[in-house]
């Protein structure tokens, strides 16, 4: 997991590996173990992925303990709790305009806390807006170099006629 920074019109930063846990099951069951965020949002360290899937994020060294705790709370329900940290790459993008060039999403209208699964050029990704207006984006680690390439290319130059 290579950490790297690109400084252009916007800044793209590949962040160090983060603990990520996929939690799947009926949402009413999952609510016993985690605080379920509203549809299409991220709240605290939990993101809403689909009607039966949540993504729980934590420091990488805490993944094992988190998984044990989640599984203990979900005993007796039909569920899946799995460590997907190694399957994911995570990026921080300082400006939504960079994402607007690459994703078919109305990034300008995203509120902080909004979580959107979409495509980044040709690969699947998910990103969300943080309180400070920057974005974090996750994609599969197998395509991390591709994501890095398109993100840093898009971040290199500003889009003058859309700014402001």
């Amino acid at each position, binding site marked *: 997991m290579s950490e790297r920074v690109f400084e252009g019109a916007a800044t793209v930063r590949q962040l160090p590996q983060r603990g990520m846990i996929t939690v799947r099951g009926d949402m009413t069951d999952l609510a016993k173990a985690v605080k379920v965020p509203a*549809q*299409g949002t991220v709240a605290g360290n939990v993101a809403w*992925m*689909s*009607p039966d*899937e949540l993504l729980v994020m934590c420091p990488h060294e805490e993944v094992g303990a988190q998984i044990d705790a989640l599984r203990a709370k979900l005993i007796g329900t039909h569920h899946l709790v799995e460590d997907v940290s190694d399957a994911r790459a995570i990026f921080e993008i300082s400006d939504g305009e960079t994402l607007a060039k690459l994703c*078919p999403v109305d990034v300008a209208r995203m509120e902080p806390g909004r979580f*959107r*699964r*979409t*495509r980044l050029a040709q690969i*699947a990704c998910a990103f969300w807006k943080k309180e400070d207006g920057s974005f974090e984006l996750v994609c599969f680690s197998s395509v991390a170099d591709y994501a890095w390439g398109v993100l840093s290319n898009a971040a290199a130059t500003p889009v003058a006629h859309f700014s402001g």
Partner: protein
Amino acid sequence: MLILSCPNCGELKDETELSAGGEAHLTRFGPGSSDSDFEGYLFNRENPKGVHFERWRCSSGCGKWFHAARCTATNEVFGTYSAQVTEPPQEIRDVVSAKRPGWTWRDLS
């Protein structure tokens, strides 16, 4: 460009985020069916100019299937609805009837 609202995740999805799943509401004819029924299930598809019902998958998104009703001539979207039905729900048919009076599609109208 076609933009569909996924009824599973509530997002407005661009066509390029979705995978087309072909015609909706096919009845499967499998082992034991007649040759003509099986052939129809495999090969006979509507190709309408106008109202059409299709399956789509939110592939760059929540990953779930859903149904969409749209007009193939204008790309107007009448609505999207759950994948877990065998025919369009009444509210979708009402919307289509209001916008395309006299529409027919297979044995629906």
